[in-house]
């Protein structure tokens, strides 16, 4: 147990804090290195909106904005204050929907993205792994070969382009799925069976985008992992003893190839999250991606800052949780 904590748990906890520390530090540094001063940008935007404001009020506003952006004091002081506010969970008010706190806006958007991402990641992982194992176990099967080609052809295409193609084909040319959103305008999200059905129908294409791009990687990974195992002595022995093919495939082959794939699941979350953001923009899905787009269009600096910070902490935490679950699958880690 001591060895487990020392050699497995401790490095992971350290890594978790390194990711968050580095990520937050980068988001702290970026605005300060940028040639645009967010305070001046905001002031000039308000001035250009045409209203006449007296110079004293502008000066007052400038001071308030400097305070709000955490730009007062020396860089070290700013940095400490930045962490202080973060640890209190205070990301400041959103500028475009003043004075709604940024955390509240993110809180409303996050569940949509999370639900979609979770479903898509799990589905693509399962589908990719099963098909990948089948592909190396039945190399002559035409259907699986066709899926192989298809998955590898979609894999390099950016999420945005795949989403666009799916949208045009399945909502525009062959209109079987709704064009945009997570539910029609005018309905209120609720937990009735009817709404769930509408929600599923609206989420089908966004989820399909993530799955199509995602499962090729798991597929090719599982295929190469199992291709080594298939010729192992114990598999050949199991085959000669007449154990059912299905059992050999799941219990003997796939189980032994699973571990790197579980590790990969954690590592892929950051990329999938980025993909989900841009995919939402195409489908106008009301999650973090749409929130980001709104923030960009409305010049809402504090909201973008909040989204970046939330994304880093969120993804790092999910990766950390995956690491904590990992020993359940790998007995070697548990019994060190």
């Amino acid at each position, binding site marked *: 147990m001591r060895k487990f904590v020392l050699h497995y748990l401790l490095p992971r906890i*350290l*890594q978790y804090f*390194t*990711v968050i520390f*580095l*990520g937050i530090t*980068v*988001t702290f540094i*970026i*605005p300060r290195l*940028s*040639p*645009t001063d*967010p305070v001046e940008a905001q002031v000039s935007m308000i001035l250009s909106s045409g209203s006449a404001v007296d110079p004293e009020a502008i000066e007052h506003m400038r001071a308030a904005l400097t305070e709000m952006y955490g730009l007062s004091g020396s860089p070290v002081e700013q940095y400490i204050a930045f962490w202080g506010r973060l640890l209190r969970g205070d990301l400041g008010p959103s500028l475009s929907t003043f004075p709604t706190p940024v955390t509240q806006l993110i809180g409303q958007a996050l569940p949509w993205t999370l639900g979609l991402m979770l479903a898509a990641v799990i589905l693509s992982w399962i589908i990719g792994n099963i098909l990948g194992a089948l592909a190396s176990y039945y190399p002559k099967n035409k259907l699986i070969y066709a899926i192989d080609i298809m998955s*590898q*052809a979609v*894999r*390099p*295409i*950016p*999420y*945005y*382009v795949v989403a*666009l*193609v799916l949208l*045009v084909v399945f909502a*525009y040319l062959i209109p079987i799925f709704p064009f945009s959103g997570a539910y029609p305008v005018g309905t209120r999200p609720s937990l009735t069976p009817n709404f769930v059905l509408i929600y599923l129908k609206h989420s089908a294409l966004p989820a399909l985008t993530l799955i199509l791009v995602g499962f090729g990687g798991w597929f090719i990974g599982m295929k190469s992992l199992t291709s080594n195992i298939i010729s192992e002595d114990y598999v050949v022995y199991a085959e000669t003893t007449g154990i059912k093919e299905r059992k050999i495939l799941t219990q003997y082959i796939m189980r032994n190839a699973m571990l790197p794939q579980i590790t990969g699941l*954690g*590592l892929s*979350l*950051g*990329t999938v*999250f*980025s993909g989900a*953001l*841009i995919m939402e*923009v195409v489908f106008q899905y009301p999650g973090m991606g749409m929130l*980001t*787009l709104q*923030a*960009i269009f409305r010049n809402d*600096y504090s909201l*973008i*800052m909040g*989204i*970046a910070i939330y*994304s*880093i902490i969120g*993804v*790092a935490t999910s*990766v950390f949780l995956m690491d904590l679950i990992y020993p359940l699958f790998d007995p070697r880690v548990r019994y060190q």
Partner: protein
Amino acid sequence: MSIFRIIRDLLKYDSRFRIAFVFLSAILIMMLLSFVSPYSPNKTFVVAMDMPPSLEHPFGTSSRGQDIFWWMTFAVRNSFLLGIVTAVLSRVIAIIVGLMAGYEGGWIDKILMAINDSFVVMPLLPILILLGFLLRGKMNFFTLGLILGIFGWPWDARLIRSQVLSLKERSFTRTAVYSGTHPFWITIHEHLPFVLPIVFATTINNMLWSIGMEVTLSVLGLSDVGTPTIGTALFWANQHGALVAGVWWWIAAPTFIAIILFLGLYLLFSSINEYIDPRTRLRLIGG
């Protein structure tokens, strides 16, 4: 073996390489055509607006009165150039970090890899969006390449490091150490040549990543939208509501070209990757 023989062999035996060759040749021809374009990409309203594809305008014309085919020749060239700029910069960082971490080991390795792994799991898009947002209007084409280059190295640094770890245990490294070669020259003269084939393969992979990132950032309006790229083509089409207005060819052209470019690069990557991997080569000759 000369490079031409490698290409000839790959063309003969690897169907993926053949497809990649055709796709990338088409892309290359498009890039070269940009030098003889009859229209400047910066001028708007030089041809009739919203014309569907025809013999005169193979990809149609846009609502900004530009010939989409000729405009796309510049876009492909710029996107490709961006990929190269990003790849070169991030390769330099990846090679330095990978060689150092792999050869030195110990604390240097631990610290470098901790930073490396943090960048691997971090969601880069929100950070790049923050950057793009703050640099909006000031972002030019090369700044974008630089920024992407700074963020694009971690996956490959780890790959190079793992290669060096195994090279370090080979006898030639020991011979070099015992004969008093400076560690710097061991990594440069003895290890780097072994690592270069992987560097080449990852270059292509990195270009896929950066060109894709450019599309994403441009669609959000966060890149230099004045420069024609695959991403800005989609940005302008969206700005003019091309799909709603029925000008579908404006969306279709960049999408189609993006698919050709990405598939071509990816197939080239996987073909070369397999070629330089000694295990698969052994399997091919039945060893």
